[in-house]
């Protein structure tokens, strides 16, 4: 009978309502948005006369934006310009939809003291301070200090170590008269503060950093011969390490810094990979095929090398043990041109030049799966070099008829050109993390 069956249901309903009232309401969030985190880096206050020597906020904001993970709020949109946490009114920042806020100040060197930089990082919504540091600026290098701050902010917000306070090396060819001149340049990771470390009237090629960042190996052509040099970046002193007849090229330091993998041709026209022990001077030949074997790149454990070889008919990447060179294994199977490997710091992937339908692009090869993922569109993107934190790749591309440097985030999302200057830029190499932090935190962070 209907009346009878409704009664228990009514009872159950009453119980259900009572239960939900006691338990917490759980809402499942299964998606977010994948966009750069909006951040405001307020122009740092300059506690001296005139204008600051370096626009620290600009350096930090540009670094963060170049990583692809952040969108720096344009200064014009800022409703206020606080320089310390005490002055911050978070309503102003919620109003412009930024998640994080950086404020700071630079004090010029007082008598006997050094330039000092102070900054704080806040989460606009929790209103909590996440970082607060006071940094001494070494050698008056305020720009480097700004990159350091950017690294700290990046690490706090992403969990990954930042690679902004690093340097890059590259070749510049200025064509004026005749051959023009060739230069090997070292600059900040954003292209600023470029320093010429080698100048030559003839071809310079393939700069390669030592793992501690103190030396650069490179190729210099002189008198119709090619030579490989290792030069101390700080002092400029250099040593000739190889000068065989024929090809001397593609130097690459081993992860322990004791060996140099190179490409030599002992036999005219046949380029092979050799390993030179920089300590003992011993030279060992690793490849023997009558093919072009070149562009060696070390795996982070120093036990194997990835290199380019056309032994299969077209340039592809191969891998072999660094001690013996036995049995190279081909590792690229997509496409007819795969060359110029740069191994990621975690050893799991390799950035390379990959030809897709005639277009040369930067791609990343996953060593475990063999999958190749393109990061750029070409048509002439070359010389990839991984950042030491594995988050970005430095490479060359064409822009406005010039050859320029650019970075691309490892997910392929954000590409940005670096400031370069005149001349054709090529063959960039991203230097390692600085040995020992330049900035020692004297403030506190959370």
């Amino acid at each position: 009978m209907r009346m009878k069956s409704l009664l228990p249901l009514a009872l159950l309903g009453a119980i259900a309502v009572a239960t939900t009232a006691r338990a917490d309401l759980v809402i499942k969030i299964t998606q977010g948005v994948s966009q750069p985190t909006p951040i405001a880096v307020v122009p740092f206050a300059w506690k001296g006369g005139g204008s600051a020597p370096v626009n620290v906020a600009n350096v930090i904001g540009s670094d963060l934006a170049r990583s692809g993970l952040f969108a720096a709020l344009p200064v014009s949109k800022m409703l206020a310009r606080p320089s310390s946490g005490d002055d911050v009114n978070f309503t102003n920042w919620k109003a412009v939809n930024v998640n994080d806020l950086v404020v700071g100040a630079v004090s010029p060197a007082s008598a006997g003291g050094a330039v000092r930089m102070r900054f704080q990082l806040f989460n606009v919504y929790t209103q909590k301070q996440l970082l607060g540091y006071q940094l001494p600026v070494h050698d008056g290098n305020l720009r480097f200090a700004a990159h350091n701050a950017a690294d700290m902010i990046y690490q706090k917000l992403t969990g990954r170590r930042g690679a902004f306070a690093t340097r890059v090396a590259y070749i510049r060819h200025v064509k004026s008269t005749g051959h023009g001149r060739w230069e090997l340049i070292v600059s900040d990771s954003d292209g600023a503060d470029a320093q010429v470390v080698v100048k030559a009237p003839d071809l310079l090629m393939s700069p390669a950093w030592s793992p501690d960042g103190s030396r650069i190996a490179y190729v210099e052509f002189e008198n119709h011969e090619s030579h490989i040099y290792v030069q101390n970046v700080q002092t400029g002193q250099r040593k000739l390490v190889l000068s065989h007849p024929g090809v001397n090229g593609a130097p690459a330091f081993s992860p322990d810094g004791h060996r140099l993998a190179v490409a030599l041709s002992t036999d005219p026209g046949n380029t092979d990979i050799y390993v030179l022990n920089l300590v003992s001077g011993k030279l060992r030949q690793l490849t023997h095929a009558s093919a072009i074997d070149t562009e060696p790149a070390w795996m982070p454990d120093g036990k194997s090398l990835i290199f380019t070889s056309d032994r299969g008919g077209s340039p592809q990447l191969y891998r072999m043990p660094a001690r013996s060179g036995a049995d190279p294994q081909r590792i690229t199977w997509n496409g007819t041109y795969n060359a110029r490997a740069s191994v990621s710091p975690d050893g799991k992937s390799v950035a390379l030049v990959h030809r897709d339908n005639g277009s040369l692009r930067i791609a990343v090869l996953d060593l475990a799966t063999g999958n190749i993922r393109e990061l750029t569109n070409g048509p002439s993107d070359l010389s990839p070099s991984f950042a030491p934190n594995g988050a970005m790749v430095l490479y060359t591309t064409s822009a406005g008829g010039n050859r320029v440097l650019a970075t691309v985030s490892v997910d392929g999302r954000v590409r940005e050109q670096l400031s370069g200057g005149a001349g054709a830029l090529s063959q960039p190499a991203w230097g390692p993390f600085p040995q020992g932090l330049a900035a020692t935190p004297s403030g506190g962070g959370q």
Partner: protein
Amino acid sequence: MNRNALRTLDMKHLCGVAAIAGLLALAGCQTAPKTGPGAAASGTRNAAASASTAGAETTGMGSGQSLSGSGSQKPQAGPESSYENRTVYFDFDKSVVKSDYFPMLKKQAQYLSDHSDARVLLEGYTDDRGTWEYNIGLGARRAAAVRQFLLLQGVDAGQLKTISYGEAYPANSADNPKAWAKNRRVVIKYLKPGSNS
């Protein structure tokens, strides 16, 4: 980074380089032609450059053995021969010497055989489609192919030196297939006797 130290080195280096450059200019060594018409260079280099960009060179009727370099008739072999008579062009990604160049190479081989003190530098080049170091290897392979041909013609190995510049020093830096074809080459460069240049 000690900038002062660097700058000092720079100057020294520049001075040294300037000196060498000056010597080179005076010596009138031939180097690869530069891009574009009217590219400023010294002496014979300039002539060679404008000759190459001017188009096809007419070859004289003579055997090209004359050292006097009379008028517009250049010899077909030897240091006075025109750029085109000393250049082998290659197909994309190939290092095979095409038979089109056999007659020209044979003439150069003959010259070398007849002039045992003559030495040549075989400069291998590529177009710029590819990576720098792989192109060095490809240029080297091309230079070696020409060397091999000359050896087979009886030229003494001591008269032959090879080098690869890869994609550097293009003959034509325009970005089109015609220009690229002009860059894929081996240039036979006669060296001054007794020197490396």
